[in-house]
């Protein structure tokens, strides 16, 4: 019994993916999407992410930068500070430190502009830069995805598919591979003028299939992974066209877990985005 509890805890401490949302402008907060900021753009984000999984809670503050290299290629960097606390049977433990930075390159390979709307598709690749810090890893985590969407004056849609792969640590432990399918719908109830407060509401549906991870020694962690379905309401508010406040909650609505696991809880993202250069 003791052994299964310890396996379960090991599983918990390695399942969290990088939390950076990397959302840009009117992109939904929990998924990957296609927007590119344009050549010479420079955006600064300050993001807070909270996620609960069983007895483990992770909070992360991140500074994120978006740089527009060309009209269609952007680089995003994230520098997170993470705090992980665990209400384990042996008592509450917590650790906090600067975590692994991430770099994401996005290429919008197709777009079609029409009056008041834009259709586009993009490819993105992301990697963490392992620091080996207390809340980081010693091996990288890769994320790749394809996204497509429509942005309009009145409404939006986004769809994507993402795949996350974490390289096993030297001891053989690793989080399980993740495949995500996401869709989002957004609506702007009232179109405002350029300098007026603009409000957009989104709702995302996120499906996650997570394969079992690996335990120390490389054995399969049968108490990890599963199928998850989330719904994520969000609001994006820009008081003017240079600053945007974003907030969203990811609510698990169905979970089919492998083995003996605690259910996932809510995830929350709050973000502020500043637009600078061009």
């Amino acid at each position: 019994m003791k052994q299964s509890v310890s396996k379960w805890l090991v599983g918990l401490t390695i399942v969290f993916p990088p939390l950076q949302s990397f959302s840009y402008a009117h992109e939904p907060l929990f998924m990957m999407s296609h927007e590119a900021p344009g050549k010479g753009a420079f955006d600064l984000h300050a993001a807070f992410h909270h996620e609960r999984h069983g007895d483990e809670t992770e909070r992360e503050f991140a500074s994120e930068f978006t740089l527009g290299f060309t009209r269609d290629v952007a680089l995003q960097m994230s520098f997170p500070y993470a705090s992980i606390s665990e209400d384990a049977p042996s008592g509450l433990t917590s650790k906090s430190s600067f975590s692994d930075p991430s770099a994401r390159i996005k290429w919008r390979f197709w777009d079609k502009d029409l009056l008041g709307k834009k259709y586009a598709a993009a490819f993105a690749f992301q990697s963490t830069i392992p620091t080996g810090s207390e809340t980081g890893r010693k091996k990288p985590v890769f994320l790749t995805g394809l996204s497509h969407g429509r942005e309009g004056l009145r409404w939006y849609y986004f769809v994507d598919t993402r795949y996350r792969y974490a390289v096993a640590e030297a001891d053989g432990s690793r989080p399980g591979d993740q495949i995500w399918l996401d869709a989002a719908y957004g609506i702007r109830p009232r179109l405002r003028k350029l300098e007026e407060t603009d409000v957009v509401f989104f709702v995302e549906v996120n499906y996650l299939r997570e394969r079992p991870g690996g335990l120390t020694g490389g054995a399969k962690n049968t108490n990890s992974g599963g199928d998850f379905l989330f719904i994520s309401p969000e609001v994006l508010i820009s008081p003017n066209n240079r600053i945007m406040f974003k907030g969203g909650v990811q609510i698990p609505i169905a979970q089919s877990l492998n083995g003996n696991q605690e259910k996932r809880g809510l995830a929350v993202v709050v973000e502020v985005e500043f637009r600078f250069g061009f």
Partner: protein
Amino acid sequence: MKFNLAKAMVALAVILLVTGSGLAETKYVIGVDGLSCPFCAYGLEKRLKKVENVESISIDMDKGQAVVIAKPGATIKEEDLRKAVKKAGFSVSALEKVESEAKSKNLQLRSDRGQS
């Protein structure tokens, strides 16, 4: 005699204002496709402001239009405007150069009022 001189000066001023091409305002009306939110329009505004000889810009989201006004007496290369829109991530659907006489007419009206 004094009265006639004043009349002659006003008439001369009016003729100069009406024919004075240096005061005409040159503006460029750009049809911009893909413009879907005020936040995205900021990039377009900043890009267009960097174009040489641009005095001011106004963007109408509903019409998908950017109106660029040139500095007095100057013109703007249309190719530069097209490039700026493209770099900001949008497409140009139309570009029209409009020579406006708004300033001249204004001044003429003011001059006319001065006579009465």
